[in-house]
């Protein structure tokens, strides 16, 4: 039986697992953005904090995902969520922090000082400066950070199948257990396909939210 046949025969389950995967990655990305972007912005105003926060996010990134699940298990078990989607989403949120915080921080920091001074000098308050100038200029790089995080998380979410989180990783995990190559490959292909589609979609988002003026600037500089 080929991979395609496997997918067609099990399309209902495939759809369900895909949905689980989307759910985990989507939810974690929303939470991670809500945490990471403001944090990234805040640390541009507090240099001391910036080093610590980014180092922290770096440390998290170096912990292998399986190990992270293992570490979280006893802690989350206390509230009865040692296994399942909760540890998965928490892990994904943690892993996303580095690309999101770092990109946000760098993007805001890279706004030319002359532009910031012009805004301040004309009497914009901090919030107006962020909203009108800093964020619009930083937004392409911030979205690029989200894009990295999303693609990375699709891969990590596949591993979360081992803690019973569901998603397309289930095919890989069970396929290995049962020595069932079609199942393994179906899982791998679907996860990869999903990653490619999300990557393309995020690239599109990046294009859409980039202010026209910046696109013009980029075109002219080239």
């Amino acid at each position, binding site marked *: 039986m080929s991979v395609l046949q496997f997918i067609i025969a099990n399309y209902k389950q495939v759809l369900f697992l895909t949905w689980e995967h989307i759910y985990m990655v989507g939810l974690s990305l929303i939470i991670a953005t809500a945490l990471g972007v403001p944090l990234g912005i805040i640390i541009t105003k507090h240099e001391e904090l910036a080093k610590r926060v980014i180092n922290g996010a770096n440390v998290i990134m170096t912990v292998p995902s399986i190990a992270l699940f293992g570490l979280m298990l006893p802690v989350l078990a206390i509230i009865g969520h040692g296994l399942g989607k909760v540890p998965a989403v928490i892990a994904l949120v943690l892993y996303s922090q580095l690309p999101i915080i770092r990109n946000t921080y760098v993007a805001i920091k890279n706004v*030319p000082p002359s532009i910031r*001074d*012009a805004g301040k000098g*004309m009497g914009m308050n901090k919030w107006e400066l962020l909203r009108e*100038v800093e964020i619009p200029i930083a937004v392409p790089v911030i979205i690029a950070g989200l894009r990295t995080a999303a693609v990375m998380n699709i891969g990590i979410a596949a591993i979360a199948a081992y803690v019973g989180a569901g998603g397309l990783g289930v095919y890989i995990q069970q396929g290995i257990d049962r020595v069932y190559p079609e199942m393994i490959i179906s899982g791998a292909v679907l996860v990869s396909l999903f990653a490619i589609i999300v990557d393309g979609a995020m690239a599109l988002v990046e294009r859409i939210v980039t*202010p026209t*003026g910046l696109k*013009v*600037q980029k075109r002219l500089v080239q």
Partner: protein
Amino acid sequence: MITYDHVTKIFGEGANAVTALEDITLTIEKGETVVFLGPSGCGKTTILRLTNRLESITRGNIFVNGKNIREQDEVKLRQQMGYVIQDIGLFPNKTIADNIGVVPRLLGWSKERITKRVDELLTMCRLDPDVFRSRYPAELSGGQQQRIGVARGLAADPEILLMDEPFGAIDPINREQIQDEFLKLQEKLQKTIAFVSHDIHEAIKMGDKIALFEQGRLVQYASPAFMLTHPKNKYVADFVGADRALKVLGIIFVRDVFNPCPENIVQGLATAKETLAFIEKEDINYAIVIDDDKPVGYVTPKILKYEQSPVRDLVKAFPDHVRKRTSARDVLSFMLMHDILTLCVVDDNGNFAGTVSYNDIQKKIRETYTGEMKKDKGDRL
């Protein structure tokens, strides 16, 4: 009015400390343009940035309209001052119209009012609103961007303007015209302006007063004419240039020196004979012929001898006439070119308004050098 009271600014600490400004005391009166002049790194930008609190003052105080800026809300303080930054700093994500309209929008102006204001300012900066309004900064040349920077600073019609080398990147022809335009505007609006420049020509042209800096210290604070004629020390003399007497010519205008009722005037219908008699009686070398209020030329005894017709048919024409707003520099250049020592002054309709001679100009220069400074406004000497 802006008052600097013993202002010192030191960047950094300990071994790395840089004294950017040292004990600066000066006042910019309301409605006056003061040019902060000096070589690179002498603290010109710093003094502007202290004024709108982009930098903090190390020692001393700055008062804006009598109020200590330390005690004011910095956002409010900045909103009452237009700021034109040296590096232009346009917002790349906004159109030209939105860039110019930033402060009016912060202040809550209506859309129509902002649009109208934007077009007005673009026109003033010699940029066609229909072409430039919806472009982005990246699509403009450096000089055009700088003009937008100036327009943005002026947008909300602030009472005080801080301008940091606002015309530095503009080509000479456009710069002259924009400077002229700006001077005309300033004559009408009477804003209080702190204007940074490192160009002595610009300083002489734009400033009611010039503050000359050397490495963070104020060396001389005086009117352009006074600085040119009475440089305080060698540094000032060198900075204003060896040709400073010639530069004085740039700030003397025909209106300051001309003779509105010269005596050697004859009407065009007078006969040659009458005119000859007039010239002999007055003991002059020539007479200027006016016909229908317009200067048509001049006549000398040599031309008039043996002639019968009315003088208007005998005249030698002047190469050209000058206006009251022509600078002495241009008049002298004209005199040298055409080998003539007296020219007619005409008004905008071409009607005779008087004469200006080499001697008139020389006398004025001598007066300037001996320190006969008139203080009144409008008359810049």
